[in-house]
């Protein structure tokens, strides 16, 4: 961990790991999509169950992204780890994108299944709140004049927003929702048939590999951006002197 705290050391590790992660992502998607396209139709939902292979992984990663940002926020505010703020800022746009995909694919799945694109039930609303929180954090990161203050404000909002994660997870148990209760991560095991569950798990692994790839690449970009900023400040000081 001490080695990783050094951005130069971290960059060299990322440069070595990224090509392998890209290859793993491509292979997992090729395998996952082949299994997903050949999965049998659901006896009630028909072929629309294929939307699940996108919707469920993106929902998991939307929440995982915020969980990751919450750990990074603690690192920023409590331990002042040099890469914590970089990690938080890098995870935000990726988590927001996956949450957006979750909302859109859920809506497109809901219309043929429930008869409506949207309903203000607890699960859908709490995921929409998560997406709005992502936009709020991105606004703080991208518009703050002083990057340090923007990062601290984003970290505080991230920790406050973490309260929403258990609400999303348990909303289907605590309230009467149109959204179905948990059918994979639940006590007593999954209720999904293995012929559909396995493609879903492979697609979830593929999306997770994609998230990891984009996350590391975005962290690398952010470290380079901070170097550019530092060098421009030095350049400005030299011109003034």
């Amino acid at each position, binding site marked *: 961990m001490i080695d990783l705290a050094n951005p130069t050391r971290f960059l060299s590790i990322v440069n070595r790991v990224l090509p392998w992660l890209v290859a793993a992502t491509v292979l997992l998607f090729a395998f996952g999509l082949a299994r997903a*396209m050949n999965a049998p139709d659901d006896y009630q939902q028909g072929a629309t169950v294929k*939307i699940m292979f996108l919707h469920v992984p993106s929902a998991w990663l939307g929440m995982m992204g915020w969980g990751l940002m919450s750990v990074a926020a603690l690192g920023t505010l409590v331990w002042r780890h040099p890469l914590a703020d970089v990690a938080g800022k890098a995870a935000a746009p990726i988590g927001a994108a996956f949450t957006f995909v979750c909302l859109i694919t859920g809506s497109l*799945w809901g219309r043929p299944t429930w008869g409506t694109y949207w309903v203000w039930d607890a699960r859908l609303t709490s995921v929409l709140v998560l997406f709005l929180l992502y936009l709020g954090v991105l606004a703080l990161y991208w518009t703050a004049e002083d990057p340090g203050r923007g990062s601290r404000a984003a970290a505080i909002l991230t920790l406050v927003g973490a309260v929403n994660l258990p609400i999303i997870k348990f909303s289907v148990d605590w309230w009467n929702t149109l959204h179905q209760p948990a059918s994979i991560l639940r006590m007593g095991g999954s209720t999904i048939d293995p012929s559909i569950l396995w493609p879903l798990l492979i697609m979830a692994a593929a999306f997770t590999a994609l998230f990891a790839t*984009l996350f590391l690449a*975005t962290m690398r970009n952010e470290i380079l*951006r901070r170097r550019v900023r530092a060098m421009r400040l030095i*350049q400005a000081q030299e011109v003034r002197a």
Partner: protein
Amino acid sequence: MNLGPHADFIVAAYAVTVFVVAGLVAWVVLDYSAQRRILGDLEQSGVTRRSQRKADQ
């Protein structure tokens, strides 16, 4: 592969996902090359980071 009567919804879901993921990948790749180019320009103009100066000494 028969997608049934709701094929439009399935195709739209996959299309939106591909569009968003492709956008993310393009943003990351273009941002990386932009930062590398700016860093290269700054180094060529003689600007060095303080940590780089220490490493060189």
